[in-house]
């Protein structure tokens, strides 16, 4: 397939999302247009159903997927809205993934159109490809730094759809490190973006937090020790209380800036190390945490300085968190290579690796 409209479905964790993507691979630089795209998070959904019917609240992906599909596909002839289907089949929560997979299977069966089961993580990587400027310069081999609330991976790509994970966190994801740090500072959960906000005019050298494994030759990372370090720093060590930290004003800004620096420094050091070990022509910065301003700017500086000639391509901030447009984009890569799956054999794969 060279020119088609692909329907993307994403239900792997908290978000339910549906997208229609028009893609045209006939030109040297593929043309891509996000025709329709909606994302609803569990928070919105819970508000919408108000927990009135417990089964609905607990399995809200089901009514939400149906409602989003109904609203995004053509009223008159819904199956004519797309030429192919892409769905996140894993990794994620089994019951959540199954909703999207079964929707995709049903649509594939009734329409007779091809379906692709996409790895949620390759979806994140494909989000960078949705930027026209990136598509023009797109070049392999590439190294993706994929950072989100649930994942922190360094992925080597020799070509579209060909992935090798060369490094990853051994415990907490980077986004989780941000969120739990915020919790320890009494900023609520999830509070990653709040840390970044307070960090903006803080002194990142005011406190020293560990940068675990930063000098370790492996490309793995570890962020779980940061929680203990913060707890010691904020002086609630042995008492083990979750709240009650009294950082305000300048001190809060400084502690946030120092935490952010410790996380970002590790991510950048490991990315640069990986790119030197596996020489690449481009770096991709993707996933929810890729929206972090400091990570975006520090990585740009580091790539310019340490990896001359290497391109840095970032996912757009609006498509950094879980969404169906990225799933459709990854599905389009597979279809362009002539790859699709048998809907009868497709299943949710909660522990799927890249």
């Amino acid at each position, binding site marked *: 397939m060279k020119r088609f409209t692909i329907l993307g479905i994403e239900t792997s964790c908290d978000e339910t999302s549906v997208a229609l993507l028009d893609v045209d691979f006939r030109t040297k630089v593929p043309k891509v247009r996000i025709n329709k795209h909606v994302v609803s998070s569990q928070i919105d959904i819970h508000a919408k159903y108000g927990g009135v019917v417990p089964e609905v609240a607990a399995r809200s992906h089901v009514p939400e997927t149906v409602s989003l599909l109904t609203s995004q596909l053509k009223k008159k002839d819904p199956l004519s809205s797309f030429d192919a289907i892409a769905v996140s089949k894993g990794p994620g929560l089994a019951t959540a993934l199954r909703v999207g997979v079964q929707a995709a299977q049903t649509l594939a069966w009734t329409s007779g159109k091809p379906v692709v089961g996409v790895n949620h993580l390759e979806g994140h990587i494909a989000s960078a490809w949705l930027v026209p400027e990136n598509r023009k310069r797109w070049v392999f081999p590439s190294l993706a730094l994929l950072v989100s*609330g649930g994942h922190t991976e360094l992925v080597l790509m020799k070509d579209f759809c060909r992935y090798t994970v060369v490094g990853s966190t051994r415990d907490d994801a980077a986004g989780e490190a941000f969120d739990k740090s915020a919790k320890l500072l009494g900023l609520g959960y999830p509070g990653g973006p709040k840390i970044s906000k307070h960090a903006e005019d803080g002194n990142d050298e005011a406190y020293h937090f560990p940068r675990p494994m930063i000098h370790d030759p492996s490309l793995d990372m570890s962020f779980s020790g940061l929680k203990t370090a913060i707890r010691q720093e904020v002086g609630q060590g042995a008492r083990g209380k979750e709240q009650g930290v009294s950082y305000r004003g300048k001190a809060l800004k400084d502690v946030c800036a120092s935490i952010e620096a410790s996380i970002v420094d590790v991510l950048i050091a490991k990315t640069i190390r990986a790119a030197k070990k596996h020489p690449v022509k481009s770096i991709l910065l993707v996933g929810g945490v890729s929206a972090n301003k400091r990570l975006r700017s520090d990585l740009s500086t580091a790539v310019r300085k340490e990896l001359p000639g290497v391109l840095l391509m970032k996912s757009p901030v609006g498509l950094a968190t879980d969404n169906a447009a990225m799933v459709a984009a990854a599905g389009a890569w597979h279809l362009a290579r002539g790859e699709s799956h048998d809907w009868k054999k497709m299943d949710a794969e909660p522990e799927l690796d890249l």
Partner: protein
Amino acid sequence: MSVNVWNISSVEGWSRIAKHIASKLRDGDVLAIEGPLGAGKTTFVQALAQELGASRTPKSPTFSMLRTYAVNQKSIKRLLHVDAYRIENEIDLLPLDLDEELHIPGTILAMEWPERVPKWLANRRICRLTIEMRKYGRKVSCLGS
């Protein structure tokens, strides 16, 4: 009912506790692991998984809420690693289908933040592991059935 208490001061200490717990676990058991952020709950589950012969090392399940690991120790073949940290209303535990998952023979379940889901844990055969932070190291107690 038995109580065991350990005072550990290094990472290796977790393996000692894991060895003891692993020897006590039976098919269908639930291990409730309590302790504040940064206490070492996930680190303990990593040690437990290793003790049970897992090929993959567990990572934090906070975001995904449930991760499954193939293990191999006598009758125990699957380790479910659950994190209730993001669960505000117990009803949100339902999509994890834990009862169904636990029914699969050879499954044991290790749960972080069990205090978030008291109703689900009530009247269940559980072993309760409590981790307290000390200035140097951790005090870990296990209250088992």
